[in-house]
């Protein structure tokens, strides 16, 4: 059977891996190529790279890093951050990305989803959304989680799938950085409306959080996290062994 996937996420700024807590107070972590090697050896099923650079120099540095990672690490690579146009898709795909994640770019221009799906295939287009509860409703946030778009997040994701998104990254702002477990209520709500693979993001603090996610919410396909893996608070190899012992299909 197909396995559940464990995905470390590397936020890259000016050539270094950083990870914020609740999206603020960025802290320098490590060299992205070194970290990619480490994660590949640890059994990560996939890697996600987010380019959170604003400058042109930073962007060039990012594509150089991507090319270096893709020339020595042969597991699926997803790239996001600053993807607004088909040219952006092209730029990162040529450097070895397999999937491209759109977030704010799709909010600014929703047509990017069907255009990219038609050109590169649904499997290439990952729709990533930052979601927060506002007055009891799941709302879509933009600008790294700082701005409420006023769009209902579940409607947004459903429409994205209809338009060709092949996978969803569901990032809960409410649980991100809190390390108290994934936002299971949100994930269930998304799974009810969307039939494509769902990657849960935001809130993992320990191995049990992944066990609960996969055993009790079988519609979720993958768990994504950053700082708990970067700081080795959770070791991916141990996590995967633990999950398999608990009956979750894992690649070991």
């Amino acid at each position, binding site marked *: 059977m*197909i396995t559940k996937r464990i995905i470390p996420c590397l936020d890259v700024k000016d050539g270094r891996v950083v990870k914020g807590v609740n999206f603020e107070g960025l802290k320098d972590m490590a060299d992205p190529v070194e970290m990619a090697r480490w994660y590949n050896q640890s059994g990560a099923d996939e890697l996600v790279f987010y380019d959170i650079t604003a400058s042109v120099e930073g962007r060039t540095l990012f594509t150089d890093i991507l090319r270096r990672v893709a020339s020595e690490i042969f597991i699926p690579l997803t790239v996001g951050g600053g993807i607004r146009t088909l040219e952006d898709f092209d730029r990162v795909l040529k450097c070895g990305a397999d999937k491209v994640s759109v977030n704010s770019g799709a909010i600014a221009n929703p047509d990017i989803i069907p255009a990219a799906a038609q050109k590169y295939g649904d499997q290439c287009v990952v729709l990533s959304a930052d979601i927060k509860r506002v007055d009891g409703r799941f709302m879509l946030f933009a600008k790294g989680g700082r701005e409420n778009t006023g769009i209902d997040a579940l409607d947004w994701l459903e429409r994205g799938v209809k338009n060709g998104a092949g996978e969803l990254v569901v990032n809960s702002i409410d649980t991100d950085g809190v390390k108290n477990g994934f936002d299971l209520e949100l994930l269930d709500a998304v799974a009810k409306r969307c039939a494509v693979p769902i990657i849960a993001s935001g809130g993992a603090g320990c191995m049990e959080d992944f066990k609960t996610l996969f055993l009790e919410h079988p519609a979720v396909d993958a768990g994504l996290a950053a700082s708990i893996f970067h700081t080795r608070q959770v070791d991916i190899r141990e996590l995967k062994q633990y999950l398999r012992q608990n009956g979750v299909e894992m690649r070991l």
Partner: protein
Amino acid sequence: MIAIVDYGVGNLFSLASSLKSLGLETEVTRDADRLRAASRIILPGVGAFGDAMQKLTDTGLVPVIREEAARKPLLGICLGMQLLFEESYEYGHHAGLGLVPGKVCPLADDLADPTLKVPHIGWNAMDIVPGREDDPLFRYVKNGEYVYYVHSYYAKDCAASTLVTSEYSIPVTGAVRSGHVYGTQFHPEKSGDTGLRLLRAFAEL
């Protein structure tokens, strides 16, 4: 030299890099003479069958690939494997290269468990077909190792050439062989160390 057929479908960076990382001389080409000079040919591909077959036909390489496939090892990967078959029912009906008997059909129509998602994306275990364990493609891998799949269509009516299946409520065709012609539905160039070992075995066929 291993020639990777460049016909404008998909991203060849990882495939070329994975072969280079094994120390194998690799060329990405659409030149008929380079395919003839190669010791092995890889036919990659992502996207839709009809469009890819049209692009391959437009390069004029189809007769060259047919001739060379009789002489040297050829490996089709993902959509490149599907193109090896006689026909496909992806958005209509299209003829393939006909190098392997069988047809390509929508996975969603045949799944025994309708709650499973299509595309079939992710890592799945290789179940080597009993009696096929000694195929030289498996020289460096064991039964049950995991490989990475991304696809919505799959090959069927090809039992005689099937080397590997992976369980997705039905046995999904994972690898095939007919003479010198091999195909993998999964992506060896994205299947970590297992994939590299499969590529190394292909290079030594």
